[in-house]
């Protein structure tokens, strides 16, 4: 599919696609995808960056001071790998982040370790390592800003970001 414009000629296909997209969202009740983080703005074209973020889930979360890929994250990363293996036009940057409950330099290292663990998991499921780069932001880029565990648990994350689309 090239995009919404190509599909609108057939109302039936549009209706079918929307139904699937909504069902897909409804099935994901964990906080581990961007739809639940308020990033969703409706249906996304399969193969688009939005499709990846909304329907696959671009981020996983970690336990305190840990870079172990949790069981709930393994499902997301497995879906990420399937999607990335289907849409090979994207280069991938994996961002590793830490919550604020650690000191600055250690958290930079911790974020790097989380990014590497995520990269290695994807590589083990067939994503070509040469497509993937990692970067650590330590605790410099929180997404949730409050002073308790509800925010810290959202900030301990690795985010798989896409670049080089359409190339």
């Amino acid at each position: 599919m090239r995009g919404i414009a190509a599909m609108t000629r057939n109302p039936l296909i549009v209706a079918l696609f929307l139904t699937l997209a909504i069902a897909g969202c409804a099935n994901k009740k964990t906080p581990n995808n961007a739809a639940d983080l308020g990033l969703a703005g409706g249906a996304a074209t399969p193969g688009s960056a939005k499709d990846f973020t909304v329907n696959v889930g671009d981020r996983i979360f970690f336990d305190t001071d840990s870079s172990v890929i949790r069981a709930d994250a393994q499902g997301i990363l497995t879906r990420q790998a399937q999607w990335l293996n289907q849409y090979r036009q994207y280069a991938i940057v994996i961002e590793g982040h830490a919550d604020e409950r650690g000191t600055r330099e250690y958290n930079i290292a911790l974020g790097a370790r989380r990014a590497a663990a995520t990269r290695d998991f994807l590589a083990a499921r067939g994503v070509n390592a040469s497509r993937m780069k990692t970067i650590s932001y330590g605790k410099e880029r929180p997404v949730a800003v409050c002073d308790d565990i509800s925010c810290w648990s959202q900030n301990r994350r690795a985010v798989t970001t896409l670049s080089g689309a359409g190339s």
Partner: protein
Amino acid sequence: MKRFFQAMLTAAALTLGVNAVAVLPAHALVEIDVNKGNIEPLPIAVTDFLSSDALGAEITGVIAADLQRSGLFAPIDKGAFIEKISNPDAAPRFEDWKVINAQALVTGRVTQEADGRLRAEFRLWDTFAGEQLLGEQFFANKANARRIAHIIADAIYERLTGEKGYFDTRIVYIDESGPKNQRVKRLAIMDQDGANVRYLSNGKAIVLTPRFSPTRQEITYMSYEGGEPRVYLLQIETGQRELVGNFPGMTFAPRFSPDGQKVIMSLLREDGNSNIFAMDLRSRTTTRLTNSNSIDTSPSYSPDGSRVVFTSDRGGQPQIYVMGADGSGQTRISFGGGSYSTPVWSPRGDLIAFTKQTGGEFQIGVMRIDGSGERILSTGFQQEGPTWAPNGRYIMFFREAAGSGGPKLYSIDLTGRNEQPVPTQNYGSDPAWSPLLE
């Protein structure tokens, strides 16, 4: 630093012809024993330096504020003064100062030389012994009036405590502005009392952990410019920047060696762990110091350069380790329960300052270099990043109180009783104290 300031400042001893001598009396009554456990601040009268404008009072205000913040001195309110100093070349009426319990007295004068430079003279008096303890004069550009004040405060501190001062120093730190999830971070430098703030980066890239060179007007820091987080060198006066080394991965947590010739830092490995390397800035050769499957970071040299203290989580959580400067004999020294990080070796060589996390709180503390004698100086919701004043008596760090929105800078002395906020225009973090300026 020497090269930059040499031309600006000259000092000379002042002697008084009348009835006092500038020779340091061995029997002076007024002295502070800084090694006593509970220090009673010394009452001192700092009189406005005679001057034709407001500069005299301005300079003495800076001196009194420095002395007050040290916790070792209690400047007396000017309203209590009896004698009005009209001739700073003559001995004061000691009785007038003893009556208000001023154990030490500072007098002085500021004048302008024919070439436009300022001339500041001051004398320090022991009122109970009835003698002069110090008499000196300084020349400087008018723009450096505050520096003169800090230098005089250092001279007073040193004469009365017997240890080096720390007022003529600067702080490099990270200025933080904007909301927490879009924070703008800029490199900034200021005097240790918060005056003369100057920005050294434009805020477009994240900058972190600046550290002073012990020997030059230079800092090393980490920047995300160009999307690659790496360690840089920056010449403070020229703004000239340079990448430290050409490593395949991220470099971070830089610090200079005591001779200023090396930068020690962490290098990210392909497997996600981080090890410690030292890079010689002249030969550009790098030496690996650690090779563990763990996070090894925050290295800091001992003042003689023979050892390095660092953070490692090789034992399961971050703890403090010491090793030889060649990487030999890596030994854990922190065993107090909780996790420890950001170790910094004292300029005196006897203590290591650290951040400790325990019971959901962050603490700033010190321990001896074998890990014994741990003392917690400050406990808070979120605080970290100690840096030592060059005399090894004061520590600066940053703290973010719960719900406060951002971090601010604080200083604390080794007793833990004298904590002071360090004023900054915006939020501030990652402070690093300079050596004494020259």
